[in-house]
């Protein structure tokens, strides 16, 4: 086993990895930029090495500086976390060349599965479902009609040359096809200079469901079930859960989607932890989208339901150990939900809100897991992403997990920066969310309702706040006949000593 491991990351995931290393009796080496000298991951690691200026490209993305830090500290391995260099094949290769173990898949797997088109080809070779359709342009209406009939309506016409919604038409029946083709082709011609269009199956109100896989370097690979990550905003996941409510309703989907994920991962000779993302429909069809060749932000929900410590296994696997679990040993229990706490204002278009954290209270007690990268008094840097912490809960069923998350959100206190806690409080109360009828457009359609009704504090709550403020204000009594500016001490008159005992 390694004696010392460097963590090429920051924030909550660096803290998560420090914890795993400490539990394995491995010394941890943090790295930090100028902006992160006081960051929590630096405080918690056994060692910490300064690697450069605040901008990521001069520190957390600087391959040479990170390898230099690893050599200088004598680290035998590097855990890249997520983001930054975690899916950078060149970095993984540079580690290998430097004789430092990269805790993740082989660089060739990163390279192969990091390309969407290459990954799609791997999936096709593996016989896993991808969104059906043509990748080449359609020659004429007859061909379009034949293909559309084959993949089944509704279909999506897409411009071969472009993206961004231009030259795109949803077609729900053959009768609409011809006119839609004319429209799409004309729009594509205008936008991209080419009227070529192609056809794809339209996945309506898709769910984002992903499968966690874990494989050792001796060819043994298992899956740890699915996570549903349909609650997202601009492709940024916000709430994740396991099991997916869809799988909870149709348990047979887990085996099918898990098998599909394993087929693809096996075809890529994948080792270590990885995630295969799928689009899924309420009828239980699913289509491979892409693979993330690293640990996911939302890995805690899988850990909570399976009891498998993914980060611990990542390290053990990288050290050459064999994965001792067989597929049939994996058991799922209860229900887990994760909320990502961002420093962003849901009432102001989710604009980031860095600042100095004033009060900070983590929820605790039964079924709560808090993975945080912050502490009270810390000033959130401007340079990095606004994820402060991940609040996860486990309970024996999804309704109980929702009840528990609402309780946890109630306890959680972060002041000094605006966070999206208020969004979770309302989302968890939403009957559609509670029913589990999720899709990737869910949050966008929830927002108008959320924004329309800003929670008002009750008159009692406002009164309590007034009384709290009055108890500490140093108000001096107003002078007779003078203007404003002199105020009376409420508490002097009301017997402050007695109240404050």
């Amino acid at each position, binding site marked *: 086993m390694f004696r010392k491991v460097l963590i090429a990351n920051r924030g909550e995931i660096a803290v998560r990895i420090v914890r795993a290393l400490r539990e394995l009796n491995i010394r941890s080496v943090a790295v930090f930029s100028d902006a992160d000298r006081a960051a929590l991951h630096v405080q918690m690691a056994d060692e910490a090495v300064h690697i450069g200026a605040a901008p990521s490209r001069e520190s957390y993305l600087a391959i040479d500086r990170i390898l230099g830090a690893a050599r200088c500290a004598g680290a035998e391995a590097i855990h890249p976390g997520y983001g930054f260099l975690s899916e950078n094949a060149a970095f993984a290769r540079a580690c290998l060349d430097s004789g430092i173990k990269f805790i993740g898949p082989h660089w060739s797997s990163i390279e192969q599965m990091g390309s969407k088109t290459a990954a799609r080809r791997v999936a096709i070779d593996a016989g896993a479902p991808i969104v059906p359709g043509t990748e080449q342009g359609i020659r004429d209406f007859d061909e379009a009609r034949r293909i559309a009939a084959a993949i089944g309506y509704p279909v999506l016409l897409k411009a071969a040359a472009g993206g961004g919604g231009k030259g795109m038409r949803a077609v729900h029946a053959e009768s609409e096809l011809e006119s839609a083709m004319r429209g799409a082709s004309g729009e594509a011609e205008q936008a991209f200079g080419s009227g070529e269009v192609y056809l794809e199956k339209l996945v309506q109100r898709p769910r984002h469901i992903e499968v966690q896989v874990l494989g050792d370097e001796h060819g043994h690979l298992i899956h740890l079930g699915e996570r549903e990550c349909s609650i997202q905003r601009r492709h940024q996941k916000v709430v994740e859960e396991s099991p997916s409510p869809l799988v909870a309703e149709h348990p047979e989907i887990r085996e099918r989607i898990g098998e599909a994920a394993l087929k693809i991962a096996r075809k890529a000779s994948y080792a270590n932890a990885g995630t295969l993302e799928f689009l899924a429909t309420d009828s239980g069809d699913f289509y491979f989208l892409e693979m993330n060749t690293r640990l996911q932000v939302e890995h805690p929900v899988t850990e909570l339901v399976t009891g498998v410590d993914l980060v611990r296994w990542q390290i053990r696997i990288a050290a050459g150990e064999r994965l001792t679990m067989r597929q049939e040993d994996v058991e799922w229990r209860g229900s887990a939900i994760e909320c990502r706490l961002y420093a962003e204002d849901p009432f102001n278009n989710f604009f*980031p809100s860095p600042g100095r954290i004033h*009060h900070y209270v983590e929820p605790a007690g039964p079924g709560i897991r808090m993975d945080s990268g912050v502490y009270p008094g810390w000033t959130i840097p401007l340079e990095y992403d606004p994820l402060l912490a991940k609040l996860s809960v486990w309970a024996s069923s999804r309704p109980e997990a929702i009840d528990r998350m609402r309780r946890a959100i109630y306890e959680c206190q972060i002041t000094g920066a605006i966070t999206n806690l208020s969004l979770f409080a309302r989302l968890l109360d939403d009957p559609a969310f509670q029913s589990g009828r999720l899709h990737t457009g869910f949050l966008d359609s929830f927002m108008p309702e959320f924004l329309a009704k800003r929670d008002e*504090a009750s008159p009692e709550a406002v009164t309590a*706040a007034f009384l*709290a403020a009055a108890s500490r204000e140093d108000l001096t009594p107003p002078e007779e006949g003078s203007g404003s500016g002199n105020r009376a001490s409420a508490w002097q008159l009301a017997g402050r000593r*007695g109240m404050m005992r």
Partner: protein
Amino acid sequence: MKLRADSNGHSYLLEIDAVEGGKSVAYTLKSLETEHPADELGGSASVVEAMPGVFSVLLDHESFLVRLSPGLDDTLDVSLGPRRFSISLGDLRDHAPRKRAASEAGPQELRAQMPGKVVKILVAAGERVVLGQGVIIVEAMKMQNEMKSPKDGVVSHIGTSEGATVAAGATLLVIE
């Protein structure tokens, strides 16, 4: 003791009196807005500061854990369970209701809501703009925010430049 108390654009009269024994106070809260008179609240209360800025308040039996942190201007930001709001306390003779929001008439300053970097200024001084038109893009935490004009008008002043780092509250543009 009488105080003027403001929250969420509403103004109240808060009256606090000592109670025999000193363990609690009697209070009443009345709306100062004749057009929207809130129900009058009153009873006995006990307040302890458990930690700096953290107050346990009992209104009769009801328990509130109030966290206060300094807000903008004279206000205090309140965090209470999942609720966040602002309050201020002052002299009762400040009769005028607080401004709800900046008026749409007259020059309006567009200010940075947080520290960040100016990525792009989309308008020039003297240019005519309409309500909701994007005028400047500021970036922080890997996110770009396009700020919109708060009114129809003319850009009378640009207070920053592309690539500049701005502090929270800095005036970016003035629109008249």
